[in-house]
Structures are given as C-alpha cells and as structure tokens.
C-alpha cells in the first residue's frame, strides 16, 4: 500500500517519522473497496431519510386514501404522480411507509447491537480474565445458546415475552450475544499474553483498568467488523419476526410487517410485495458491503478471508 508518499524534498529521516493519521489510514483502506463505499453512500441515504422521515415522506405512513387503494407506482400504467411508489391494500402511500420503516429498522438494528455488544464485551472480558471457573461457566452457557438456531430462539423469546418493538429488540440482542462473548474472549486471550499487559500489571494497574483501558482497545477491530455484520442480521431478523406476525405490530410501518400483510395481494399488486423486500435486501447488502470494507481497513489479518 502507498501509505507514505513523501515528496522528493523531504529527507529520509522525516519519511520514517511521518505516519499517516489513523483516520486517514483507515479511510485509505476503506475507500480502496468500491463496494464498501457504495454501501456507505446507500446507508447514509437511508439514515438521512430515516432521520428526516416526517419532513421527507410525502404523506403520513398510516393515513388511508380509500379511493386510491392499490394504485400502481407512478411509472406504471394507471399509476399517478401523486403516489410515487403506489399505494398498499388500505390506500396508504408506500413510499412514505418505506421511509418511516427505515426509522424502525435502523432503530431496532442499533439498539439490539448495543444491547448485545455491551454485555457481550463485559462477559467476554470476564471469561478471558478468569478462564478457570467463571470463564468456562460463561462459555458453556454461550455454547448452549449457540446450539439453538438464531431465528428459532428469537421466535421463542418473542413468543414468551409477547410481540412488539421492545421485545423484538430484546430477542435479537439475546440471540446475538454469544458471538460477541466468544469474539471478545478470543481476542482478549491473545492480548493477555502480550508484554504490554504484563507491563501494566507490574505498574500496578487494577483489574478494571487492565480490562477496559489496556486490553479492550486492542480487541476493537474484529468487534467493530462483527457489530456491522450483526447490524445487518438484526435488520433481517426483525423483518423475519415482523413477517411471522411476532415483531412490530401493524399499522406501524415495519418492512417485514408490510410484507406479511402484502402476501394476499401477490397476484394483483406486485409492488406491495416487491418494494419492501427490495428495500430490506438493499439495506442488508449495503451494510454487508460496508462490513467487508471495514474488515479490509481495520483487520489486515482477516483480509480476503470469506
């Protein structure tokens, strides 16, 4: 990589000392991956429309236009420029529902990632620092959770807690937890053998300082990559739960819930089925592309691995 491109005027000693800033180095690695940049741009667009949904969306997501039920998209025969992406079975504007749905999907994704990441990191660090009793207890518990298929476990949790936005987030976070614990433990275990950790110990650093100030920052790269990937699977799982009728309840415009109610119109109105699913696919794909780019930029060891 051409990280250091010194002009001929600078002396050799200066070249050796002028490292690019970490941020710049990261961006060089990331922007090298065209797909990742495309994913980033798409997700920025989704995030902006989610933030500005009430102002961007042409209509209210739950307002029903009874005389315009199942209007095709504007570019189709019979469509009108009034409803750009057409309307659904109750005459609600599809574009507005998709824009408002972005809010919900991003909210569920972000919240469940944080809800899994924070306890996952803490448990993982504990497991790495006390490998004998506490560590193996935690890891056995995680093994058990890993044995249950993710979606099935989420479905079971929601079935017990009852459907809804908050419970969806809790279920997805619980399902995502074991991977964070394992990842943190594995990277912390390798770091624990390094000299700098011993040095800090000798210098008298306490347990909390060792965990969060010494070791954790050095485990961040794989964690950030994994958090990105689990953000996309959280969106997929939330949509799947919504589709099964166990997630966010109608009339809230959640992408998966929209698909579930559109199922009956599969023969008459392709747009009601296609557009929400396409939005899910593109968002998840964009995040996964970003994840690939992040891995290239942050974690050279994993580069080009599947």
């Amino acid at each position, binding site marked *: 990589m051409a990280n250091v491109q010194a002009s001929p005027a600078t002396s050799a000693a200066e070249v050796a000392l002028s490292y690019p800033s970490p941020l710049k180095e990261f961006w060089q690695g990331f922007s090298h991956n065209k797909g990742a940049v495309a994913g980033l741009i798409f997700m920025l667009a989704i995030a902006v429309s989610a933030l500005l949904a009430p102002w961007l969306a042409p209509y209210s997501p739950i307002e029903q236009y009874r005389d315009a039920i199942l209007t095709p998209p504007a570019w189709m025969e019979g469509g009108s420029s009034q409803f750009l992406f057409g309307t659904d079975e109750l005459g609600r504007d599809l574009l507005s529902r998709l824009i408002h749905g972005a809010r919900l999907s991003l909210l569920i994704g972000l919240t469940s990632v944080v809800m899994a990441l924070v306890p996952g990191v803490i448990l993982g660090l504990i497991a790495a620092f006390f490998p004998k009793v506490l560590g193996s207890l935690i890891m056995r518990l995680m093994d058990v959770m890993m*044995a*249950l298929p*993710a979606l*099935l476990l989420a479905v079971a949790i929601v079935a017990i807690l009852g459907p809804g936005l908050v419970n969806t987030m809790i279920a997805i976070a619980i399902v995502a937890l074991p991977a964070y614990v394992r990842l943190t433990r594995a990277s912390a275990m390798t770091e624990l053998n390094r000299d700098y950790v011993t040095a800090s110990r000798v210098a008298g650093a306490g347990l909390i300082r060792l965990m969060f100030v010494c070791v954790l920052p050095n485990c961040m790269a794989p964690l950030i990559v994994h958090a990105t990937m689990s953000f996309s699977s959280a969106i997929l799982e939330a949509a799947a739960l919504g*589709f*099964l009728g166990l997630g966010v309840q109608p009339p809230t415009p959640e992408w998966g819930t929209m698909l579930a109610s559109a199922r009956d119109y599969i023969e008459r109105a392709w747009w009601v089925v296609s557009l929400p699913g396409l939005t899910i*696919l593109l968002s*998840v794909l964009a995040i996964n592309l970003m994840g690939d780019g992040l891995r290239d930029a942050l974690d050279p060891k994993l580069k080009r691995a599947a």
Partner: protein
Amino acid sequence: MFAFILRRLGLLLPTFFGITLITFGLIRLIPGDPVEVMVGERTLDPQMHADAMHRLGLDKPLYLQYVDYLGNLASGNLGESLVTKESVWKEFATLFPATLELARMVMLFAAVFGLLAGVIAAIKRGSIFDHGVMGLALTGFSMPIFWWGLILIMFFSVKLGWTPVSGRLDLAFDIAPRTGFMLIDTWLAEAADPEINAGAFKDALMHLILPAIVLGTIPLAVIARMTRSSMLEVLREDYVRTARAKGLSPARVIFIHTLRNALIPVLTVMGLQVGTLMGGAVLTETIFSWPGIGKWLIDAISRRDYPVVQNGILMVATLVILVNFTVDILYGIANPRIRHAK
C-alpha cells in the same frame, strides 16, 4: 480416536442439559398464571385451580419440577399438545420427514452449485465471472428469504404457472405415507399402480423445487464464498505447484490435488449451516405451507400450545447439536491435528 470421541461427548452432555434448562425455564417465564394459560380460562374455581396445579406438578419446588421434567424426557415422554391432545413426540416424528426431505434437497442444491461456483471463481480469480459470483453470493447472503420465496412464487407459480404454490403434493393424489419422504412414496406408488398415480413423482418434485431454492440460497452463498477462499489458499501450496510442474492435467490438479484438500473447511461450514437451515425452515415452511416442523412450531406458538413449543424447540436444538457433534467427529477423522489437539 476413541478418547477424542469421549472428550467431545463430555462437551456435548452439559450443552444438552443446558438446553433442557432453557426449555424448562422458557415455560415458566410466560407472564401470568400457568394454569390459566394452559386451560385458557381466566376465572377458575380455586379448588380446580389447586387440583390442576397438583396434576401438573406445579405445586412442587422448582428444582423438583426440573427433576420431574428430566425424568419425563428420559422415559421418552415429551408431553402432549394442548390443542390436538396428540403426543408431542408422535407429532414430531410424523412431520420431521417433510423437513428432512426439504433439508436434504437444499443441501444437495447448495453443495453442488456452491462448490461449482466457488471452484470456478477461484480458478478464474479476478475475472468477470469471479466478481459476478462473489457479488451474487453476497446478495444471496443478504437475502430476506421470506421475501425471496414470495418473489419466486409470484414469478414461477402465479405468472408462469410452472410450479405449485404450496404443500407437498397435489390433492388429486392419494398416496399412502410409507417412508414419509414424498419423493420415495410417490415413486413407490407410481411403480405399484402406474394408472392411478401417473405423474405423482413429478408433482412431488415440482412442489419441492421452489422451497429448496429459497431455503438453499443462504447456504449456497456461504458455501460458494468458503469454497473460493479455501481453494485460493490451497492453490498457493507447494504441492500444487509440484503437481503442476510434473505435468499433471489441469483438471487433475484442480479436482484431485486442490479441491480435496480445500474441502475440509467447506465441510465444517456445511455442518454449521444445519442451524441456519432449521431457522430458515420456519420461514420457508410458513411461506409454502410445507407441513414440516418449522411450520408446526410457528403454528404452536400462535396457538399458545406450550408443550409443543417447549419440547419442539428441545428436539430441534438436540438435532442441531448432534449434527455439529457428528461434523466435529468427521473433522477429527479427516484431520489428525484436530484429533490430537488439547
């Protein structure tokens, strides 16, 4: 080898008991009174309520209830459905072949096309084909499969009329279930009575195609990606260069020297896909009204049929850990380094 299997078994048992703890706890986490939930009535006579508590063993301390639960499991008693009054085990055993048949078709589809795409992409690294396959694989990996199913139904079933929309077999056929596998049953039926059952096998196959593609999309993508990267790694090995240098044909180098060695990690990934498959089966079976255990569990959840939910999940989880155990053992057989690692 024997010690290795024993060691793995030693890891398996705590996991299994952990799962029984979860399924046991799941039922007790339901908000509200368990008897009211089970009976479905709000105001019960206190005496009847106490009787029901006693009959269900819910008046005992929690640890004794758990011991009872384990005892029931050990004697093969998985309880009975609140709705159908059938034993949970019997329902599971009746519906499982449908899911197994689907899963086998899925793995066949995903393995054949995934390996093929991965191998070609690795050989033609950097080509348009490589970029195309990897792009498609990432798309497949990101696919909301419930939507994918609807799109395929919309196109192939509704628009073109090529495949049926749902179920395992057309209602016009009356096939006696012998093995539970529709492809085998229809084959046997056609052989026995070609007049009445003509076309039954083809019909069963047509019912199977779309669900298999839908459920196979993610495993296909994962296998293609893994095969490609594993192939690229092995292609760099010295023995591959040696094989080429001594003048072996390119096909022999690729399939005998490279692919065989590249397969080990791919096989592990395939084994790990079983969990994904069981989760995906819930969605796929719901979309295609496929009468397997995925749909059974979702139906049980919506009917609040708790014994089915509890022990159905236990069965599925047990299945997943058994498959992972088998993969572990096979991996140990294939790779002595794993077997002897501590």
